[in-house]
């Protein structure tokens, strides 16, 4: 028989370290159904019949955050055979709050007090026997970092799971509350699941809607219960939910007084001293800027980009692809198969793997910043600047990295806990021009603006401006509205992360990119290769020469859809085709123009065809073309990353659809208004732009729709329940 142990505890308690130590490499990482919350489980080492289910780090089992809903749904519905509750010994008081809630579930429980090495170092004392007695479960001292006590803790949890020792919570509440709870228990006799009465009775007292709905109690019982609750609320002058919270902390305070002697109280710890400097009113921003410069310099300017360029240009560009070409030639493989393998599959695999080295470098930094405790400080320092646009202070890193490459930028959004902040960041990060968009900017700047210095900065300005506008508009839409997202955040003590944890985090993130994003990228590369290399030559459908792109299926589609872009000033089919090939990699766009203008080997900025190019576009339509391509759907690799991080097909489509729609509107307004100013003629296009502008202004300045909470959380609950 198989036993399941749920590992539950607050964030920053060393839960991940413990989980890794207990399961080793025997892990399965996925997502909880329908949400972006990560789900991990693994087999307990040395016990093939015991599965450890890692729950998200949570502070409470309230029904308000996604992580809490996911955890409690699991605990109540799936009923693991035991709970291993990990608590931070250096921060016992707040940690025990969750423990009191877990204890009420009636599931056999073992408590592991972690960071005992730190507790002893501080000279503090925890009376384990007393704690065990007051909590009603076995308590064991551990240190996940040094490995002390972890096997004993796991063995103990496995033992209580096998013996099914039902947990009976020892804590009680104030007289009137217990009186009401007894009434509720009586009123619901026989309607509540066995061994879980305490949990349900307390939830009913708290008027927890999710529990009320799930139990489907008769209306008469609900009315009866409400009477009891209201009486207590009047007597204690508070709402029922707050009464319970207060009572829990009261009980915990009494445990702490009895069991925990803190010698270090009031003294400044090393972490406090570091924080005094790092988040100092004057030094915080300069220190932050310096750290960000380092991250950017190493992962974008130097090592990361060099490594990625090497994989793309040297490994694939000079070694694998030519070698495969030679091999195909020597085997006299049919042209179409040759093309499929080399230009479709190998290039597609290259497109996936090319990003990995840079991502690894970036992920090392991110894992370190998160594990050492600085990431929480970034949110603290920048919160004020970002929250107005529905973003988190932590959105800064994805956007900074996104200016180098959008793919690792999007993957960096993983560090944002709040789901709606994270989705908003994923949707807007690629609006910052990445390095692959530089050749497009150089082309437009060179061909139209005489290489003026301000063209590139203006592109960044357009990007930042678009993020701000999008943030404000999206925040007010139904998609993002109503998420409570209170910024009530713990600032954990600084500590040195372990090498193992960093390595594991880097490995998990990189491999999930390869697996989840890789498929999309590969398939799209093959599709675009097919569309651009096949077509009609003299009326017969055949594979085309490289310079015959104008006869391809892609060119055919381009000529059919080009009218869509006419209001933006560039209804020419070449521009549509170029924009489409830009989906593979944005820099392809310049090369495509080169081929279409009959120059197969144009320079990176397309200098050779600036002259011809300038005849097809006007200055205004060229800048509109630039704007559209900067803001629209990013390359397929970035779209793959969006899909991976959204973990949801609908949200992926929303993100990409929004980006394209927004880009279209911006380019339309730019082109139409600037044409109107320069020519003075009011056209149908100008009218359309006016309408778009009016809608956008409305969306920007309308009052935020009424708080209608919990939309997203309800979504999640529907899936998990």
């Amino acid at each position, binding site marked *: 028989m198989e036993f399941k142990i749920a590992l539950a505890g607050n964030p920053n308690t060393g839960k991940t370290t413990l989980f890794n130590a207990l399961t080793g490499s025997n892990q399965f990482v996925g997502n909880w159904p329908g949400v972006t919350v990560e789900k991990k489980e693994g087999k307990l080492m040395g016990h093939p019949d015991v599965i450890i289910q890692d729950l998200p780090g949570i*502070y*409470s089992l*309230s029904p*308000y*955050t996604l992580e809490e809903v996911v955890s409690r749904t699991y605990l109540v519905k799936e009923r693991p055979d035991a709970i291993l509750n990990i608590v931070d010994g250096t*921060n*016992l*008081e*707040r940690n025990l*709050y969750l423990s009191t809630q877990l204890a009420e579930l009636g599931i056999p429980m073992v408590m592991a007090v972690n960071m005992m090495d730190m507790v002893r170092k501080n000279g503090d004392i925890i009376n384990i026997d007393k704690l065990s007695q007051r909590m009603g479960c076995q308590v064991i001292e551990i240190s996940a970092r040094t490995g002390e006590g972890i096997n004993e803790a796991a063995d103990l949890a496995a033992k209580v799971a096998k013996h099914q020792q039902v947990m009976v919570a020892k804590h009680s509440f104030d007289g009137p509350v217990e009186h009401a709870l007894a009434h509720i228990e009586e009123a619901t006799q026989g309607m509540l699941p066995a061994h879980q009465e305490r949990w349900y009775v307390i939830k009913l007292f708290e008027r927890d809607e999710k529990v009320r709905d799930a139990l489907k109690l008769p209306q008469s019982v609900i009315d009866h219960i409400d009477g009891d609750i209201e009486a207590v609320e009047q007597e204690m002058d508070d*709402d029922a*939910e*707050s009464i319970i*919270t*207060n009572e829990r*902390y009261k009980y915990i305070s009494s445990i702490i007084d009895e069991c925990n002697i*803190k010698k270090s*109280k009031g003294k400044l710890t090393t972490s406090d001293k570091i*924080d005094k400097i790092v*988040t*100092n*009113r*004057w030094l*915080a*921003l300069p220190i932050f800027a310096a750290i960000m410069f380092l991250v950017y310099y190493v992962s974008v300017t130097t090592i990361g980009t060099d490594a990625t360029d090497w994989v793309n240009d040297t490994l694939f560009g000079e070694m694998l692809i030519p070698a495969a070409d030679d091999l195909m030639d020597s085997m006299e493989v049919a042209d179409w198969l040759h093309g499929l393998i080399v230009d479709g599959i190998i290039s597609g695999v290259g497109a996936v793997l090319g990003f990995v080295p840079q991502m690894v470098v970036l992920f090392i930094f991110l894992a370190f910043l998160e594990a050492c405790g600085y990431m929480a400080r970034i949110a*603290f*320092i*920048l*919160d*004020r*600047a970002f*929250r107005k646009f529905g973003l988190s202070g932590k959105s800064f890193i994805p956007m900074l990295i996104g200016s180098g490459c959008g793919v690792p930028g999007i993957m960096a959004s993983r560090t944002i806990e709040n789901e709606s902040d994270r989705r908003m960041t994923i949707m807007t990060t690629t609006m910052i021009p990445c390095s692959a968009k530089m050749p497009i900017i150089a082309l437009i700047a060179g061909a139209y603006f005489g290489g003026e210095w301000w063209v590139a900065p203006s592109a960044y300005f357009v990007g930042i401006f678009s993020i701000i506008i999008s943030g404000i508009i999206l925040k007010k839409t139904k998609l993002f509205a109503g998420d*409570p997202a*209170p*910024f*009530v*955040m*713990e*600032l*954990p*003590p600084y500590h040195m992360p372990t090498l193992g944890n960093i390595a594991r985090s880097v490995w998990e993130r990189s491999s999930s990119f390869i697996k989840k994003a890789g498929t999309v990228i590969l398939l799209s590369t093959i599709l675009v290769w097919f569309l651009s290399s096949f077509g009609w030559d003299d009326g017969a459908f055949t594979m085309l020469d490289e310079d015959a792109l104008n006869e391809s299926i892609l060119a055919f589609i381009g000529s059919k859809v080009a009218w869509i872009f006419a209001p933006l000033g560039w209804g020419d089919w070449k521009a549509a085709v170029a924009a489409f090939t830009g989906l593979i990699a944005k820099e392809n766009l310049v090369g495509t123009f080169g081929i279409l203008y009959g120059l197969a080997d144009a320079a990176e900025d397309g200098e050779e065809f600036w002259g011809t190019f300038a005849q097809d576009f006007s200055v205004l339509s060229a800048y509109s073309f630039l704007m559209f391509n900067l803001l629209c759907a990013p390359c397929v690799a970035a779209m793959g990353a969006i899909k991976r991080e959204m973990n949801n097909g609908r949200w992926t489509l929303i993100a990409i659809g929004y980006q394209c729609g927004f880009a279209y509107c911006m380019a339309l307004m730019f082109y139409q208004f600037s044409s109107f100013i320069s020519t003075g003629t009011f056209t149908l296009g100008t009218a359309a732009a006016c309408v778009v502008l009016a809608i956008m202004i409305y969306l920007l300045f309308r009052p935020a729709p009424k708080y209608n*909470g*919990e939309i997203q959380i309800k979504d999640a609950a529907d899936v998990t329940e």
Partner: protein
Amino acid sequence: MTTLRDAQTGKDYEVVKLHGTGAIKRRIMDMGITKGTPVHIRKVAPLGDPVEMTVRGYELSLRKADAEMVEVKEL
């Protein structure tokens, strides 16, 4: 009425009452800010918001808009 919003850096306060309702109130209470809890104001973020405080032996940050829900008295 003094709230945590007006609390001054470096001073100690005691929570008198929590105003407001729903998710945010519950969240603040879950984190240990309940009636009678001592709170020490550590610092204000460089941009003027949020506020960092020590409560029940750990560091918590709260936005001023949310801190306004917590009525306190100076110790």
